[in-house]
Each structure stands twice: as structure tokens, then as C-alpha cells.
């Protein structure tokens, strides 16, 4: 011990003279001590805990991180990330420790005041129901009386969102719900009972609980992926695949990585380290972002295009790639790839100077050749019908493959004949449809047809001139007038042409050197625009031209709503009750809400506005609502509810008329006595009546056009500035009723563990178990593991798991059905289905509408399929609880691969136990077991059987991909123990064999398996009459919609405001609406709603940081604080996604109404090409195709308001 009492350097420690276990350091600076006394017991006690339980966070986050939840004295204390993921191998970073601050703060909800612990009913409704129930003795009769008495219905609907909840018992709340559902099934039809719950992957059993219920009832289930504008429509268009992307660990394999509209540290927090780490391996990183987003700091180069102009930049890069790597110099790797794996060599007909459709074998006189596409063999110059196109898929086993044999497809025609074609451009022109430009292509005559190749069209479209082809061509990269050059994009995006050239060139050169390891990570910033499909096609062109797709470390990496339920077969068959009946009513949400929240009544953009001059005028006089109605009646896009009558009555009426159901329906449709809902959505017979939301916050997060929902769906008027469309813009085919209905919905039920904006407006709020209180399983695109939710504690008070809630509801419905429903026959109008022979219904995508006599209505061909399903409503509760007999009878079918699963049914009988001889699904963990058992990714036998089937179809070898795992399976209890790696399976397109990182389409590229498209290849050319009408057959840049022109500049009406683009990127302090109300996240952010704006825009309206501002446009109004930052570009503001209106939202200055949230500023628009269907890869599947609910094209005015706020 040395103690110095030097007065200068030995300050107060010198006073410590009675030390026994301390060492005072030199000159008395430091005190060393061995712990010994008891003072530190506080920290030791705090760290103590009783148990650790593995769980995760479900639904709204796609990170799928495994967490350890700590429990002490029966209470959840905190959560830390699990670190026990299977390793990626010795030379790559591991997945641990996945997580983010939002997940780390979840346990705050467990005991927070935001928690919903009891069932709540809207007070006015509860009073009426209790009285009527008592008086009438029957809950269904009580419900009927309330909703059929206008004054009563008005009384409770008008109180939505205005407080006044009363507590109810669990049984009472369930009974009220069941009564409403039974009444609706009986009176209006089961398809008027609607359910919505997103993204099954992140809690499959919870999702399945409600979807299974709706499936068995005959209810309508709404889509989410397209609705969220997360679905990249370009993916089905190009690949015939919903979305398939690399796991995050595959970023490590990239050697050039562009982040395009994806703010990885914020939105892919658990994965971001792979990006940071790949840089050390020598990977170049480029950020494309309009603002200095958090990810930009990781980039070697930052390109900041004006919002929504990304497509122009990508087209210019494509111009550079085609010029330097296809024209001036050829790269064997790229050329070979293009020949084998893209539609570039295929022949397209030219009619009237416009590209028309793929030449097919039928044009060459082959029978059944309508779906077989044609190319030229470069060796012989002969026409060839190669294997792999759609025509081989269902008809000729063994020839559906990409094996070209000795054929070398000609990439471009070698021909002295040339013709000018008209090509679309959208950067100029009087309408959204833009203009055209004429450029020459080499052509050849085949019979009556003038043809060229897709490659030649693409070269022309991108403006890459070869030889002296005629037409209007750019003079060079610096030609700013000719579309798709680097200089042209600079005018549009603001990105220097020099950078567009440099990055485009580097990207391709890296792909050349690395054989395809250039990657583009895409995010919502690029995807959630109205024309995102066109933007994405420009991106995807870059990765397909450079041979990056289907290569580890390369290709597109789209991370917007990573929906991948890896055990997809079990998940879908169980969720949609395919074990009892097939199909169920899957509905595309965007057209559904466009019609049923009456947003169509406010439309000021006619459908024709979007049409290119290349089109034939087929949308003239049509509104978007008309295109919805047309797509539904032609069987392309689902329309549920479909008929303007109760579908349960149709079967009875047919029987009474002595006709088959099909004949009866066709006759009545043709004579007009039977109509469709889409053609008269404001007829009270056609309203959706009951809406149940679980795992969802429709009115606080995803509901684009929130104020329209409020008024028309709920009956709470809040639209102040929106005006209905002028008579000349009204629909042609859809009935206009002068009085717009308000309060269409009879019952809104929110099932949640926290009180959201949806809950505030609901009639019934049911308390749900949290993610730490239930059994379930989770997977994601981002990693290849399956892991579990497990209950750390029991749900408190009246809270129930989603699984138990829907079992209780089903039981109650079954009980009431004995009196009210019994056994009925339901008739479904099901759309033509992707990955089935329905894809052959409309050769070449030629459109014929039976309504106008262009053809006859033929179910399954020119209109939806008509399918009868017998429903015993008294058995719904029992069917929920067991695996139904169709599993043995029909097996499972995923992406056209059918597998006999009798062994799995037998296994489940033993594993889960039986009820009435069927495998039990009585609990959520049993449901998890069933999902895992029926899926190839988690059951090697199923994967093996599926690959055998695929081998028969293709004649190629696949079963070796599952070799060694044929007898392995992942059980639920194993997923509780640690994250489990999945098996390679025909359900997906990549291989994980040997611990390989997942990358999509590696199986296609390496095993010559066709894509699910018309040519069997990746597409540059998309054929369909509606696509042609919009001028979108080939990649092109379409700018953001000109909202100011269509709807007027919102600033015109407001003094002292600045008009800006209103963007809603994903937030740092929340996952969608979740965590916005979490006090930890509120403490780390600004404690309430904010709008980020540039220093310049703030100066224009005299606003300083943290001052209150108001944003408004025709759709609604937002009150928020300003965050002023120089990292924001002038002219654009951000309100980060889904702040809700529940925390720290004051009233608006003038209207005194509560400020809204980001979707108060938006309204839906329907892009008709997203409805196009009936043909090849454009045929419908749930969440696979359908109009996206985009929200980025919007503008708003921002002004400073008085700083006094009222709540």
C-alpha cells in the first residue's frame, strides 16, 4: 500500500487511512480493492433470474431473431439475443447475435399500460346487445335486431374511436362475435365475413388459427404482401415467382454490393453486420439513397437521385452495360448466361411497327404449340422450339427443362432486314402515358409474321445503336435528349452522368471478374412507388444481363416484407384448411379496399391516363374501378365477395330451378339478374360486414387512405378536403350511387395485446397473448433457420393466444349454427391460378371480355372457376382441431409439385395424438408440428418425394440435393432448443446443400430447371394485352405520378406553406406501428410524431428544429414536430412509417380534430397491369400478384402552426 498525501495530486483519497483491503496507487490517484463486502449484492441480485425461455418477436418484423427471455419471480424481466445459431462455417461471419433495439425493448409491453388485458366492447353496443340478448334469448337474433335497426346501428358505429369501452367477459365477447358472424353468413353470405392478418412466416400457428377459421366458414381472407406494396410485381412478371432472395449471409459472398433504397442498418438491423464485414473482404459498397440515410456511411460511393427517379438511373446503367459489355465487347460469361437463362434470344412478333407477342410453335404449325416459344439457332440459322417453355410444363414430362442440347440460341438476329419499332418513353408527354420513340431492329419473316428477338428490342429500348440501324438514337453517353443515356438520367435524377457510367461499368466488370457476384439490395424506398414494377425491371435487368441471378453473392436481394415461410407447404395447407376443402377465398386487398372504402369515388385519374400511345385505347372511358371489375369477372384477379347475392343461396336457387349451379349462375350472369360485387360495391348487399384483425393494425399502419376507411367503412366522418370525382370521371361499368354509404362495416374486431389505433376504433377488442406467452414458429428470408416461440409466462388476466381465441370462436359458431346454419352449399368464384394449367387459359395474353360479347363466359377459361363446397357449420370447431382427410386423399401441392403425405398423417397421429381418429391440432404446438411435418424444408422425406416428382417433370436430377437427409426432420421441440437449419426443397429455388448460403434460382441455373414463365426463362419482355396497353412490355423508366397535375397542388390553398414530396420510409424506432408507443423507443427518439425536413424547406416556412408543424393535402392532415436536418434533400419530407395517432398527437390548429398519421395523407390508386392475369406467369396467386397499395407518389404542404398545442 502506498499512500501519498501530496496535496496536488493526492486529493481526497488521502483521507482514507483505515484501509484493509484497498490499495491506494501512486500519488493517491487510484484506489484498488478486492471485492469483499456486501455492497455489490444489489447488482448481483439484479442479474439473478429463475429461468430463460427461447422466444422471438412475431408478425410485424421479419428479422426472425431468436431471443432469450429472462424470468424472475414469475415476471419477465428482460430479453437478450440468443447466440446459438448454427455456424456459417469457419470463413464467414456467423448469424449471432440477431436482434435490434426494438426487439430488445419488447418486454416493456408485458406489464405496460398499453397492454390489453381484458375484452372490451364499444359501450353503446354492449348495452344494446345485452338488452336484446336478454329480451330475445338468442344472440344471433339480438345481433340481427341491432344491425337491422338503422338508428341502433348508427348509434354504435358513430361512436367508433371516441372512447367509451366497457369491459366484457371472455364468453360474452366471443358470443357477440360469433353471433355477428353467423348472422352475416346467413343473411349476406360467408364471404362478407372478412379476415386480415399478415405475414405468416413470423408466427405460423397464430396466423393459421384465424385463417383456418375463415377458410372453414367460407370467409374472405385478405392479402398483405401486395397490399403493403412490399410485393415486387416485377418478380412474378420476370420470374413467375412471388419473391425469392438471398439470405443475409450471402451478402458476404458478394464482391460488389449496391444498396438501392434499402436502409440496411435501420430496416435490416440484425443483418447489417454482413454488409459491414463484407467490405473488409474487399467488397465495394454503393448506396443509392435520396437522403444521407444511416446506410450511406457504409458506402464507397453515394448516389442521391431525386425520390422516385431510380428507374432512370438504372436504365442508364443498363445502357452502359449493354454498350460496353454486349456491343463494344462481348463477355462470354454474360452471353452464355443470356442465351441459356433469359428470354433475350426468343422471337417476338412485330405488328404495325410495335412489338406484339412471342412467336410460338403454333405459328410454325405445331399442334398444342401456343405456349411454346421459339428462337433461332445461331449455328444453323434455323428456328428452334427449345425445351422448358410453359407448353412443356404440364404436357410433356421430361422436356420441361433448360437443356438446349446442341442449340446455341442466337442473341439478336443476324439479318439485313431491318424495321423501325415504336418504343415507349414516359419522361415526356402530355399524360402519364408518355410518348414514344422509333428505333430500328433487325427483323426476319416467319410465315406471315415479322419477328425480331427480345435482345434486339432491348438494345433498341436502351438506346444502344448497332451499325447503322435506322431511327432516333443517342449520339453518345452525353446525349441528354435521347432516353436512357447517362446524360439523360442526370436531368431526371440529379446524379452526375459520370457516376452513373462509373458505377454501371464497375458493377458489370465486377460481375465479369467474379462470375456473377454483383448484388443489388433493394428496399421499400425503391419499391413502394406506384410504378415500382417498372423501376424494378430496370434493376433486375442489370443483374440478369450480368449473369448474377442464380449465383451466390449476386443478383437481386429484395428485402421488403420478407415473407418467406420456409415450411411453406405445411403452412399453407394448414392455414387455409386445405386438409378439409380446397380452395378458400383469397382476396387481393388493394382492389378490395379501393372499392369498399369508396376510394374509387374520389378518383380523378382515368384509367386511360396511364395508357401509352402504343396502346389501342382499350381503357378509354374506363375508371380504375372498371378495370378492377373487368379483371375479376374475367377470372384474373380474385373478387371476394363475388356475387351480389349470398353464395349459399345460389346453390339452393339452382336446385329450386332444377339446374346445375354452374348453368344457373352462367344463365343469370348473362341475363343480368345476377351481378358481381365489383360492379356495385355500394349496394348494401355487397358490403363487407364483419372484419376481424389479428396480428394486424390495419387502421394504424397499413390502411392507405386512412380517412376514407374512417368515413365509409367505419362511419366516422373525418374527410374534410377530399372531393368526389366529377361526373365525367365516373366509372363506365361500376354503378354510381349518389349517396355514398358510410359505416359499411357491422363489426370490427381487433385481437391484440396492445391498444392500437385499430383497437381504438373497434367494436370488440380481444386481449391477445404476447410473443413471450405462446407456442409458435418463425422463419424469414434473411436466414435459413426455423426457431420457436415459447411461453415464458402464462397470458395474464383474460388474454388468450390467437390459437385459442379462434378455437373458442369456432366452437361458438358451431354451437349457434345448429339453429341458424346447419349444412349449406357454398359457391366460390375462384380466379385462374398460377402454377396450374389455368396458366394456359389465354394464349399470348390476348384479352377477351365475355361481358361485351368478345367471348362466352367459360368458367376457368374466360371467367373464374365455379367451385361448390359443402359446409357443415356445426363442425367448424371440430375441423379446426384435426387434420382433415384431404391430406391422404389429395396430398399436398406446392408450385405444382404434389406429394403423397400419408406417412406424415400417420406420424402426426402418433406425435400429436388423435381426436375422432384424426391427428390432433388442438394446441398451437401441435399445429407447429403439423406445419413442420408436411413441408420439405423441415421434413427430408417430403423434400425427397417432391424432388422425385420434379425429376419426372424435367428429366433433370434433383434428389441428390436432399441426399443424406431423406430421413431427417425438424421437430417443434428441436426448434425450441435452438434454431434449426432447413433442408433444400423443391418448395424453393436455391440449394442449402452442404451448408451453402441460400441464393435464389441457383437450382434453376445449375440444374436447368425452368422458371415458371411462358418461356421458362427470366423475362425482359412481358406479354399481355393490358401490359402492352400501358407500354410496359419492355423495361422503361416511369416517373412518379404527377399528383400536382391530377389533384392540384395542395399548397395552393394554404398560406405560408411549402409543397414537398411526402415519403414514409421505415423507421428506426419502431417496426411499423409497433414500439412507437414503447417508452424506451420514445426516450431514444423524439417522444412523438415527427416529420424530417431539410434545412432549406424549414427556412422557407420559418420552422426550427422540434417546432410543431402541420402537413396536409386532400386526403388528410398530420400534426407533428419538425426534425430539421441537413441530411435531408430539399423538396422532400419524411414521416417515418406508422407513427399511429395514440401517443403525443395533438389536435389540428384549425379543425380541432386529432392529427392523423402517415396514411392520413395517402389514397389508393390501382395499376391495371397488376390486375392482368389469366396468362402464364401473370396468372393469380395469393400475395403473388395483385395491385400494390403504393404510397410514395404523394405530395403535401407543410406549414408552421401555433406552438400551443391541445390534446
Amino acid at each position: 500500500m502506498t499512500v501519498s498525501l501530496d496535496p496536488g495530486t493526492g486529493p481526497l483519497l488521502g483521507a482514507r487511512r483505515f484501509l484493509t483491503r484497498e490499495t491506494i496507487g501512486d500519488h493517491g490517484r487510484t484506489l484498488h480493492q478486492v471485492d469483499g463486502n456486501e455492497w455489490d449484492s444489489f447488482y448481483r441480485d439484479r442479474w439473478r433470474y429463475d429461468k430463460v425461455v427461447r422466444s422471438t418477436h412475431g408478425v410485424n418484423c421479419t428479422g426472425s431473431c431468436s431471443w432469450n427471455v429472462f424470468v424472475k419471480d414469475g415476471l419477465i424481466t428482460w430479453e437478450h439475443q440468443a447466440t446459438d445459431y448454427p455456424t456459417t462455417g469457419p470463413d464467414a461471419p456467423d448469424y449471432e447475435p440477431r436482434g435490434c433495439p426494438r426487439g430488445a425493448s419488447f418486454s416493456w409491453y408485458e406489464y405496460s399500460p398499453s397492454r390489453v388485458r381484458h375484452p372490451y366492447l364499444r359501450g353503446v353496443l354492449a348495452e344494446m346487445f345485452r338488452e336484446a340478448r336478454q329480451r330475445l334469448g338468442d344472440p344471433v337474433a339480438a345481433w340481427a335486431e341491432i344491425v337491422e335497426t338503422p338508428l341502433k346501428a348508427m348509434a354504435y358505429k358513430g361512436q367508433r374511436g371516441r372512447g367509451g369501452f366497457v369491459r366484457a367477459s371472455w364468453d360474452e365477447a366471443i358470443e357477440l362475435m360469433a353471433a355477428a358472424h353467423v348472422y352475416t353468413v346467413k343473411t349476406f353470405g360467408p364471404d362478407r365475413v372478412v379476415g386480415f392478418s399478415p405475414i405468416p412466416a413470423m408466427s405460423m400457428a397464430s396466423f393459421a388459427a384465424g385463417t383456418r377459421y375463415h377458410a372453414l366458414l367460407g370467409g374472405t381472407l385478405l392479402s398483405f404482401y401486395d397490399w403493403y406494396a412490399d410485393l415486387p410485381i416485377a418478380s412474378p412478371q420476370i420470374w413467375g415467382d412471388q419473391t425469392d432472395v438471398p439470405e443475409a449471409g450471402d451478402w458476404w459472398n458478394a464482391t460488389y454490393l449496391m444498396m438501392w433504397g434499402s436502409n440496411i442498418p435501420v430496416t435490416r438491423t440484425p443483418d447489417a453486420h454482413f454488409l459491414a464485414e463484407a467490405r473488409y473482404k474487399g467488397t465495394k459498397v454503393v448506396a443509392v439513397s435520396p437522403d444521407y440515410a444511416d446506410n450511406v456511411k457504409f458506402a464507397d460511393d453515394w448516389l442521391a437521385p431525386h425520390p422516385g427517379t431510380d428507374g432512370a438511373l438504372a436504365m442508364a446503367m443498363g445502357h452502359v452495360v449493354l454498350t460496353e459489355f454486349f456491343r463494344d465487347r462481348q463477355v462470354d460469361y454474360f452471353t452464355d448466361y443470356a442465351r441459356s437463362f433469359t428470354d433475350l434470344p426468343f422471337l417476338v412478333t412485330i405488328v404495325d411497327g410495335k412489338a406484339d407477342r412471342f412467336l410460338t410453335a403454333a405459328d410454325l404449325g405445331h399442334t398444342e404449340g401456343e405456349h411454346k416459344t421459339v428462337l433461332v439457332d445461331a449455328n444453323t440459322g434455323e428456328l428452334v422450339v427449345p425445351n422448358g417453355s410453359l407448353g412443356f410444363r404440364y404436357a410433356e414430362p421430361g422436356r420441361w427443362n433448360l437443356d438446349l442440347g446442341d442449340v446455341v440460341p442466337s442473341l439478336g438476329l443476324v439479318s439485313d432486314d431491318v424495321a423501325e419499332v415504336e418504343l415507349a418513353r414516359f419522361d415526356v408527354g402530355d399524360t402519364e402515358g408518355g410518348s414514344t420513340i422509333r428505333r430500328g431492329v433487325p427483323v426476319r419473316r416467319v410465315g406471315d409474321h415479322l419477328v425480331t428477338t427480345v435482345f434486339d428490342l432491348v438494345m433498341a429500348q436502351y438506346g444502344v445503336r448497332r451499325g447503322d440501324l435506322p431511327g432516333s438514337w443517342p449520339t453518345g453517353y452525353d446525349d441528354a435528349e435521347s432516353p436512357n443515356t447517362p446524360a439523360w438520367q442526370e436531368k431526371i435524377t440529379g446524379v452526375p452522368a459520370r457516376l452513373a457510367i462509373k458505377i454501371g461499368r464497375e458493377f458489370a466488370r465486377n460481375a465479369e471478374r467474379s462470375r456473377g457476384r454483383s448484388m443489388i439490395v433493394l428496399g421499400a424506398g425503391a419499391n413502394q412507388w406506384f410504378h415500382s414494377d417498372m423501376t424494378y425491371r430496370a434493376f433486375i435487368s442489370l443483374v440478369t444481363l450480368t449473369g448474377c441471378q442464380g449465383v451466390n453473392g449476386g443478383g437481386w436481394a429484395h428485402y421488403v416484407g420478407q415473407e418467406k415461410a420456409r415450411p411453406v407447404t405445411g403452412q399453407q395447407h394448414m392455414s387455409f384448411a386445405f386438409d378439409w376443402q380446397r380452395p378458400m377465398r383469397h382476396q387481393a386487398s388493394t382492389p378490395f379496399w379501393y372499392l369498399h372504402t369508396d376510394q374509387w369515388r374520389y378518383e380523378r385519374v382515368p384509367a386511360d391516363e396511364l395508357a401509352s400511345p402504343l396502346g389501342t385505347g382499350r381503357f378509354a372511358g374506363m375508371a380504375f374501378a372498371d378495370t378492377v371489375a373487368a379483371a375479376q369477372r374475367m377470372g384474373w384477379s380474385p373478387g371476394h365477395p363475388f356475387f351480389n347475392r349470398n353464395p349459399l343461396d345460389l346453390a339452393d336457387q339452382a336446385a329450386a330451378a332444377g339446374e346445375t349451379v354452374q348453368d344457373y349462375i352462367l344463365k343469370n350472369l348473362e341475363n343480368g339478374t345476377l351481378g358481381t360485387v365489383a360492379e356495385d360495391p355500394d349496394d348494401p348487399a355487397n358490403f363487407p360486414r364483419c372484419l376481424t384483425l389479428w396480428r394486424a393494425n390495419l387502421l394504424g399502419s397499413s390502411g392507405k387512405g386512412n380517412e376514407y376507411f374512417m368515413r365509409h367503412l367505419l362511419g366516422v366522418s373525418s374527410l374534410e378536403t377530399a372531393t368526389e370525382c366529377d361526373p365525367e370521371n365516373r366509372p363506365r361499368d361500376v354503378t354510381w350511387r349518389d349517396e355514398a354509404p358510410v359505416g359499411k362495416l357491422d363489426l370490427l374486431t381487433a385481437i391484440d395485446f396492445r391498444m392500437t389505433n385499430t383497437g381504438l376504433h373497434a367494436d370488440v377488442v380481444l386481449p391477445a397473448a404476447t410473443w413471450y406467452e405462446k407456442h409458435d414458429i418463425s422463419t424469414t428470408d434473411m436466414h435459413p433457420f426455423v426457431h420457436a416461440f415459447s411461453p415464458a409466462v402464462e397470458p395474464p388476466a383474460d388474454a388468450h393466444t390467437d390459437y385459442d381465441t379462434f378455437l373458442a370462436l369456432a366452437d361458438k359458431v358451431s354451437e349457434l349454427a345448429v339453429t341458424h346454419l346447419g349444412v349449406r352449399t357454398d359457391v366460390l368464384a375462384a380466379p385462374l391460378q398460377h402454377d396450374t394449367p389455368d396458366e394456359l387459359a389465354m394464349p399470348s395474353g390476348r384479352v377477351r371480355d365475355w361481358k361485351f360479347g368478345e367471348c362466352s363466359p367459360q368458367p376457368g377459361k374466360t371467367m373464374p372457376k365455379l367451385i361448390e363446397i359443402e359446409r357443415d357449420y356445426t363442425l367448424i370447431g371440430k375441423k379446426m382441431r384435426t387434420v382433415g382427410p384431404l391430406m391422404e386423399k389429395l396430398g399436398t401441392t406446392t408450385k405444382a409439385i404434389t406429394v403423397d403425405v400419408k406417412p406424415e398423417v400417420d406420424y402426426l397421429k402418433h406425435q400429436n395424438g388423435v381426436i375422432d381418429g384424426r391427428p390432433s391440432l388442438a394446441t398451437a404446438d401441435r399445429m407447429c408440428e403439423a406445419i413442420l411435418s408436411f413441408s420439405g424444408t423441415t421434413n427430408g422425406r417430403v423434400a425427397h418425394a417432391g424432388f422425385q416428382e420434379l425429376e419426372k417433370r424435367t428429366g433433370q436430377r434433383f434428389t441428390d440435393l436432399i441426399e443424406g437427409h431423406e430421413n431427417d426432420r425438424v421437430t417443434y421441440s428441436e426448434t425450441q432448443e435452438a434454431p434449426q437449419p432447413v433442408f433444400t426443397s423443391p418448395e424453393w429455388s436455391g440449394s442449402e446443400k452442404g451448408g451453402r448460403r441460400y441464393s435464389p434460382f441457383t437450382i434453376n441455373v445449375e440444374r436447368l430447371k425452368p422458371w415458371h414463365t411462358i418461356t421458362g426463362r427470366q423475362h425482359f419482355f412481358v406479354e399481355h394485352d393490358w401490359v402492352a396497353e400501358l407500354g410496359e412490355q419492355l423495361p422503361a423508366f416511369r416517373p412518379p405520378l404527377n399528383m400536382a397535375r391530377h389533384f392540384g397542388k395542395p399548397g395552393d390553398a394554404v398560406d405560408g406553406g411549402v409543397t414537398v414530396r411526402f415519403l414514409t420510409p421505415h423507421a428506426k424506432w419502431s417496426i411499423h406501428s409497433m414500439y412507437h408507443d414503447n417508452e424506451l423507443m420514445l426516450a431514444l427518439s423524439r417522444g412523438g410524431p415527427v416529420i424530417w425536413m431539410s434545412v432549406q424547406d424549414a427556412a422557407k416556412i420559418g420552422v426550427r428544429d422540434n417546432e410543431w408543424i402541420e402537413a396536409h393535402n386532400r386526403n388528410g392532415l398530420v400534426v407533428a414536430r419538425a426534425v430539421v436536418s441537413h441530411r435531408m434533400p430539399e423538396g422532400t419530407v419524411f414521416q417515418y412509417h406508422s407513427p399511429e395517432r395514440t401517443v403525443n398527437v395533438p389536435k389540428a390548429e384549425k379543425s380541432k380534430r386529432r392529427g392523423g398519421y402517415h396514411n392520413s395523407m395517402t389514397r389508393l390508386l390501382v395499376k391495371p397491369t397488376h390486375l392482368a392475369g389469366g396468362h402464364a406467369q401473370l396468372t393469380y396467386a395469393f400475395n403473388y400478384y395483385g395491385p400494390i397499395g403504393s404510397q410514395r407518389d404523394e405530395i403535401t404542404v407543410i406549414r408552421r402552426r401555433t406552438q400551443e398545442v391541445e390534446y
Partner: protein
Amino acid sequence: MRIRAQVAMVMNLDKCIGCHTCSVTCKQTWTNREGTEYVWFNNVETKPGIGYPKHYEDQERWKGGWKLDGKGRLVLRSGGRLSRLGKIFANPDLPTIDDYYEPATFDKDILVSAPGGLTDTPVKKPWSKLTGEPMSIEWGANWEDSLGGDTMDQDPNLRGLADKVKFEFEKTFMFHLPRICEHCLNPACVSACPSGAMYKREEDGIVLVDQDRCRGWRMCVSACPYKKVYVNHATGKAEKCTFCFPRIEAGQPTICSETCVGRLRYLGILWYDEDAVLAAATVPEEELLDAQRGVFLDPFDPAVQQAARDAGHPEEWIEAAMASPVWKLISEYRIALPLHPEYRTLPMVWYVPPLSPVLDAAGAAGRDDTDADDIFHTIEDLRIPVEYLASLFTAGDTAVAGGVLMKLAAMRAYMRARTLDGTVANELLDGIGMTAGQVEAMYRLLAIAKYDERYVIPAAHAKTAAALEDLGGCSLDGEGGPGMGGGPVPVILSTRRP
């Protein structure tokens, strides 16, 4: 030589994504309780910015840390013993709650309990957690996040850089700076404590506040130049980051480390010579960094190992010190730097500075873009002015700060050649004075960074403490002592499958 062990941390700022998971898991575990609402043992700041609490780096204002007096002796900036004793009841250098932030809470059950017939939806409005009064939120724990607001130009590290740093869109740069207690070798807080409540643990150097001895004088708060000692306003006592000692004792990483999603934290043992600390803290500013590195002892040196054995350290610790990633990053690769060495506290949390290589939105002017294989920018092109990093990490020495960036940049270029062509670009290594083997090992530690390589913490802590006990009586005899059930009993130890 008096050999001691220090559990130290290195954070690689180049990997930090600014997510704050570390802050949340730390707060959830340690400080989400009454009295510490405003306390974040671990926080993350956006730089440039004034940080948390406001302007904490401005020692002219707060008088934290040490300085050399007129005679070249080391003195607390806040004054000597007598002057400080005089201020004991009215410390003028103490941040107020507004310098941190006033924590808010929100209405409790209004969303479900609101009576019917409202004109609008109910809403939760903000209330002060401290006073219970309605409040307007004007500042927070992370107010400047991702460069929000108008305070970043007050960052003291920007002094003299007005011509180099412009807060304009196209010239934007930022990085994140996670901070915990530095567990300094020369801790000003310990020295300033009148009660002797603060101490540096014998066995591993963790700086702690003895809650029984603390009398709430708050001199530690002022003296700490990093403002990482806080006052619990409920108990009136000081509290601070404990380096998660109950976990460290069990061989587990700190919570902020294990939950770090960016995988940027490294934990390991350093040997240092306690006898050399004072001298190292007393050298002129430009020599501080080298002097601080000079305090550390080479764990591979047999003499050091023998000294450690002689001092009672078990073999396990000697091995751990050799495997220490912290030693490698600080002393072998020399890419980790201390935060504000000029505070002279010899901080034990070091940082690899951010490469953040992005150029401005217009791209670097005047470069040759035609070579599509030459894709990286030189560090001269980088947008974070090296002077700014030097102000943070090298007491202003731009050559050292720039040298670290050169190493990182050269590593990337070297590894690109390895990855793409399998070639070894030795010419890239000449300028940074590293061998191919060193660069590849450094790359593995930074990039692949397996769990076991990031965190090398010897267990058997209690045994160590006992062996080091050279004073009367064994501390382990006490009830609740580290060897007597006082340590944690982990229900699961994190095991990772191959």
C-alpha cells in the same frame, strides 16, 4: 514493474450501425428503475454532435479529467484536494437534468378508460417522469440521432474545422459513437471521491462505486470527463456502468457486447504495469498515445508471463491475455485508439475509428473513372476530415488517425485481390508496415469475428481474486462473496453448435 490485469473493450466504430440495441439491453437490465430513469450506462451518440449529456467533451466547461499543472504535475482539472473540499456542498461543475434530459412518460390507461362521446380519439400525452407535470419534450437521450436538429455544429471536436466541415446536404457525414464507462487506469472519478467509495477492482480493473460507502458528494460526476458516473436521484448515490461484473466473473461478455448486433465489440485481458501509469499520464500531449500503449505489457513476453504468475495470476489468465483481441487491436495491429487520451485518465475502452469511406453525393472530383477495376477511393478522398477523428482519438495527431485508416483501406484492397483473383498484393502492405499474415489475421478478427474470438474472458474469476488477495483476511469468507454463491448461477450457458 507491478503487473495487473485489466478487462478492456475495443469497439470498431467502422462497423457500428447506430442501432442502440446495446443501450436498450443495458438499460433494461440495469437502469429501468426509479432514480435512474435518465441514466444510460451505455449510450450511443451521433457524431458530429454534442452528445449525452450535452457538451460533455467540453472540459473547459465541466472540468473533468486530469491536466498538467504549471510544474508538469498531474492534477485533477477540477482542482486539488483543498479546492474541491471547499466545493463539496455546492459543486459548480455538475450537469443538471436539462443537460441530460427530462424523462417523459405518457398517460397510462387513457386509451381503454376514456369515457364515451369524445369528439375524437383519446391520446396519450407526455408527462414528466420526475415531476409528474405535463411536459413538452424538448431534448432526449439521443436527440441528435442521425444528425437531427441544429446542435451538431457545437461539437467541440469541430473547433478549427469550420473550413473543412460544412453542414450541407452533399457534404453530410456522420458516424455513431457508443459509450460506456472507460474503466480508466487513471480514473479521475476514483481520485475525486471524498468517501473512498469508488475503486478499481484488484482482479480485473473494473471501476465500481461501493454503494455502502457512497455519500453522494458527486465529485465523481464532475471529475469524470466522459460523464459516465450518474447520480441515482432516489438513493442520492452515484451509479455507473459495472462492466457487468456478475457476468464477467462467470466468463460471460458484458450485455452491451453480447447483444451488439453490429458485432463490433471486443473484450479481452490486458496486462499493464501499474508503476508506469502515472508517468504515462504525465507526458506531453503529443506523446500520450504512445505512452498509454507503453503501459501495456506484451502477453507473449515470457518475462511478463512469469511476472503474472509470480503475482498469483492463474495460467488461464496468461493464456487469455495471449488470445486477447483487445491486445491485438491496440498493440499488435495498432488500429484501436483511446477516446480523448488528452483527458489523461488512460481509458480502457478503445475504438477503431470509422473508415466511413463515402464520398460526397457528387463523387470525388478529378478521379480517373475509366479503370473499372480500380474501385476504391483513397483515404484523401474521404469525407470525414481526419482532423475530426484526430480530435477524438489521438489528441489531434492526424498522422496516427490517418495511419489507422490507411491500414483499413489497404486491408480492403488487399483482400479484394485475394477474394477476386486469389492474388497477394504485397505492394499494398508496404505503406502500412504490416505483413500479409498480419493483415489476414486482422481481417479475420474484424470481419469473420467469431463469438469466441470477440470475447476472450477467463472464467474462474473468484479464484483469481483470492490469489491476488495480499491483505489480511480473505474476502471470499464473507457471505455473498464471489466464491460463495454470490456470483450468478447461469441457467444456460451460451453454447454454440458447430
